[in-house]
């Protein structure tokens, strides 16, 4: 089966196994994911890895998961550049989610409100010129049994909003 035929599970329904997520695997996946398109090759991202082995790394701020990856982004003052940079970070996160799924590493991409909080920003070493674009919840999952693969999948999109110019 090729990557394009896989069914990506609805990330709200991911059930993580309890084992850790080794940093070298995350780095290996990221080193492929950074080939995301990004205008001006500004590579506007930075990563903060959070091991949640003890289960209390982020308190109640996030759903429980074996590890988190905070994806910080450079905040450009120019709104056009800012839009391009956010889009580039989204492409990187998308690459990462697809790659992770090949290894049965489930990833849920969240954009929680606590990331605006100055104290929390500081605790993650977020600079003045940066914001937190995504917090990824990560953990290995059991492969779905083949016959239930399609029912565990995200629902088929209800019609494509496709128009002709």
């Amino acid at each position, binding site marked *: 089966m090729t990557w394009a035929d896989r069914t990506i599970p609805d990330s709200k329904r991911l059930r993580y196994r309890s084992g850790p997520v080794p940093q070298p695997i995350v780095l290996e996946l990221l080193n492929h994911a950074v080939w995301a398109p990004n205008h001006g090759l500004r590579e506007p991202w930075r990563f903060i890895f959070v091991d949640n082995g003890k289960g209390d790394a982020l308190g109640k701020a996030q759903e429980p998961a074996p590890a988190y990856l905070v994806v910080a982004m450079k905040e450009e003052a120019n709104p056009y550049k800012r839009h391009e940079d*956010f889009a580039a970070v989204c492409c990187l*996160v998308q690459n990462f989610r697809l790659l992770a799924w090949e290894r049965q590493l489930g990833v849920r991409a969240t954009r929680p409100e606590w990331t605006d909080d100055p104290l929390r920003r500081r605790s993650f070493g977020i600079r003045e010129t940066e914001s937190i674009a995504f917090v990824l919840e990560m953990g290995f999952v059991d492969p779905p049994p083949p016959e239930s693969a399609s029912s565990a999948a995200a629902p088929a999109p209800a019609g494509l909003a496709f128009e002709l*110019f």
Partner: protein
Amino acid sequence: MDLATIITERRSIRRFNSRSVSQELVTELLAQAVRLYGQGESPRVRFVYAGTPEARERLVDGMTSSMRENKLMRWVPGKMIELFKSRFTAIPGHLIVVAEAGSDRSGGEASVAAACGIMQIFQLLGWEQGLGMLWDTERIIQNEVFFKQIGIRDHEVFVGILHIGYFDKAPRGRSRTPAEKKWTVYEGREAKTV
């Protein structure tokens, strides 16, 4: 092709050949991209496609409509504009992507994120089929005539156009910074910043 190879070898294509692109293929890959995005709820994203010579010409007219008046471009001679127009009109397909700006704290960034994720998957699926694309957000094309043409509403955001076509040769990739250089481990209270 293996996914990591597709991701690393995909290039932005700026020079296309004349082979036509079927609209069925575009809609098929797009539906597959939406399915693979799979983050639960249906993304609030709209796609507008220009694939016929007539539609392309009309679109490129809109994209370039501000060039003559634009301060930045005042010095651009008419001939240059014509050259730009014919170059873009010759590209077989143009997919415009618009996201609905919802009421979330950051003015619809959730739907912009969905749109971008889908566009990236669409680029990867296309690359596997030999299709090249360029994601275009040039400021000059984001003008009133163009926005009116694609029917942008108050609560919508323009995410980008993907110019689509087959190509003879892909440019060489420009290397990326290793993730290790942009990596910090959270130590509980204060993360050390590299």
